[in-house]
């Protein structure tokens, strides 16, 4: 990618680690009906910095924009109630220096975020330095903060990193804001959809299209360890699994198979790709080691075996098979041994995806003409359906395993009109279902790991 994600990070933690601040904490294991009131003060920017930034980015008030990125991230979790900036009594610069806690308590804010943006020149190049502080209003003290310096175009990522820090501090879980989503952008009539690979920040900004739409592309999936993507392309009418480096744009076919390869997914260490090979009317699961180029067949059954997904420790694989007569979910060891069916509920089950936390498998279920996204434990017990609709499938986990993103298609009317495909997200709790905004129609989402520095 043109835009290099070279973040120069200068972390200056204002606090010694290991001190626990228990006053403000959120339990995210239940649906949160009582979101935590939080104020995100516009980040203060001095006049000289403001002019420089305006010249660099054509943004009038970058401090305000960064605070909006944070606010948007936090409010979409459903865990926070971000208070209206109109109600803030204190000016951003004073608040950042030392908040008057009574003023923030007065508007019922329990947590306050303040910050400061300064432009800098290092080796004759423009940079911005962004400082942030997290304040416990009731405890009347600062609980966290950092400052970092980066190229001006990276300002949204700084907002995401701050959001991650706040989320981690207040929930005890790792964040998921400094991440990206790769998906299939769709346009055109239902009978002739044009599909392109697209990537965007987790909050829907910075969309980039990675293919031109000349050939059909499906099911992109991130490598959990880097910025590589595996996907299915119909290049030259030969449906095959491909590997794409999204930094360089380089693409290559994965392996040398005598038929259609599809349903690819990386192993947790990113060194292997697991996928299906369809040949002579039979689909089996194969794995290819990208380092040794050794490929190996893992299933051996005349039924359809597809949609494989590794457990995060790499020891097991969950997959979809119709060997019982209908699509059901199975688990086997990663060498293909000890195949065991785990789905036994009513209806048919597809697209199993192992949670990054290891304890759950997300799936699609079709029952009585409706499609559900649900989760079950890895032995098949504890099935929980999170959402029901006319058509939806392809769950993908947020890197912290708290949120599932999937796509949903609408029913067309009598004339076959009104088709749309959109991305949606829902909390593992079954609450907080949200439309994920995309520039075009969208399907097959895959969530990246937290980006590095």
């Amino acid at each position, binding site marked *: 990618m043109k835009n290099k994600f070279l973040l120069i990070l200068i972390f200056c933690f204002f606090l010694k680690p290991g001190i626990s601040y228990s006053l403000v904490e959120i339990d995210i294991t239940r649906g949160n009906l009582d979101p935590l009131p939080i104020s995100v003060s516009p980040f203060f920017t001095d006049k000289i910095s403001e002019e420089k930034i305006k010249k660099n980015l054509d943004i009038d008030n970058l401090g305000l924009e960064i605070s909006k990125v944070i606010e948007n991230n936090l409010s979409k979790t459903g865990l926070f109630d971000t208070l209206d900036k109109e109600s803030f009594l204190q000016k951003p610069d004073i608040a950042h220096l030392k908040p008057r806690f009574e003023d923030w308590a007065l508007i019922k804010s329990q947590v306050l975020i303040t910050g400061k943006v300064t432009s800098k020149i290092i080796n004759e190049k423009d940079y911005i330095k962004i400082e942030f502080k997290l304040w416990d209003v009731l405890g009347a003290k600062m609980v966290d903060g950092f400052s970092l310096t980066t190229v001006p175009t990276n300002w949204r990522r700084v907002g995401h990193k701050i959001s991650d820090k706040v989320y981690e501090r207040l929930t005890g879980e790792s964040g998921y804001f400094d991440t990206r989503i790769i998906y299939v952008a769709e346009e055109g009539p239902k009978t002739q959809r044009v599909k392109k690979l697209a990537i965007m920040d987790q909050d829907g900004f910075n969309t980039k299209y990675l293919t031109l739409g000349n050939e059909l592309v499906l099911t992109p999936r991130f490598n959990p360890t880097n910025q590589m993507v595996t996907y299915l392309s119909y290049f030259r*009418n030969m449906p095959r699994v491909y590997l794409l480096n999204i930094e360089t744009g380089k693409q290559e076919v994965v392996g040398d198979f005598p038929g259609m390869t*599809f349903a690819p997914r990386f192993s947790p260490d990113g060194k292997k790709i697991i996928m*299906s090979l*369809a040949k002579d*009317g039979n689909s089996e699961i194969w794995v290819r080691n990208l380092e040794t180029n050794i490929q190996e067949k893992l299933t051996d059954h005349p039924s359809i075996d*597809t*949609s494989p997904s590794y457990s995060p420790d790499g020891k097991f694989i969950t997959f979809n098979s119709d060997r019982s007569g209908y*699509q059901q979910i199975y688990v086997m060891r990663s060498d293909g041994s000890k195949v065991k069916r785990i789905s036994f509920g009513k209806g048919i089950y597809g697209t199993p995806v192992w949670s990054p936390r290891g304890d759950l498998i997300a799936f699609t279920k079709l029952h009585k*003409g409706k499609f559900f996204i649900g989760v079950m434990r890895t032995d098949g017990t504890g099935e929980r359906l999170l959402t029901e609709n006319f058509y939806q499938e392809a769950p993908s986990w947020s890197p912290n395993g708290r949120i599932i993103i999937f796509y949903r298609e609408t029913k067309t009317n009598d004339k076959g009109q009104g088709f749309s495909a959109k991305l949606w997200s829902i909390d593992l709790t079954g609450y907080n279902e949200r439309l994920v905004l995309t520039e075009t129609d969208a399907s097959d989402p895959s969530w990246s790991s937290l980006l590095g520095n």
Partner: protein
Amino acid sequence: MNLSKILKNAFLVAIFGLIITACATKKSVKTTTESSTTTKAAETQKSDPIEKLDALMQGDVYIGSDTVGELASGVPDRVFFATNETILTTASRETLRKQAAWLRQNSDVTVVVEGHADERGTREYNLALGERRANAAKDYLMTYGVSSDRIKVLSYGKERPVDSGSNPLSWSKNRRSVTVKAN
């Protein structure tokens, strides 16, 4: 008003009968998905005469000619499948025999058999299902003397429907394999 009510009731009874018949004539017992599909078939076709729907689907296999093109003059290009099935119906076998006969006469022609699924299944499973359907057709063509190196298969899963409707009749048209000339 009374008359219309009676007519409506008669209509409902007729639909109910249709459902019963449809269920009873199904060879294998299917999941609830299929029976609800049948219910919806009746619902979505309310405006059409029942005879018409009956004439277009047998069980849930499409038997109409609406979307059917020609591989050659008098040789239909496609066959249709039941939900989740890859079994060739009697009508499908007849179509494929015609294709095989024509291909035997035109030995320079190579074909691609495209396999398709309806939108009521997960994308990846449907890719596999489309491949299975295309191979079912290919195998039959081979049985009738067309050599395997003249037939390529290409599964589109649910990516290329011919009918964009969200109803059982549309879905039945989309569950198909199509034999297309490749040269």
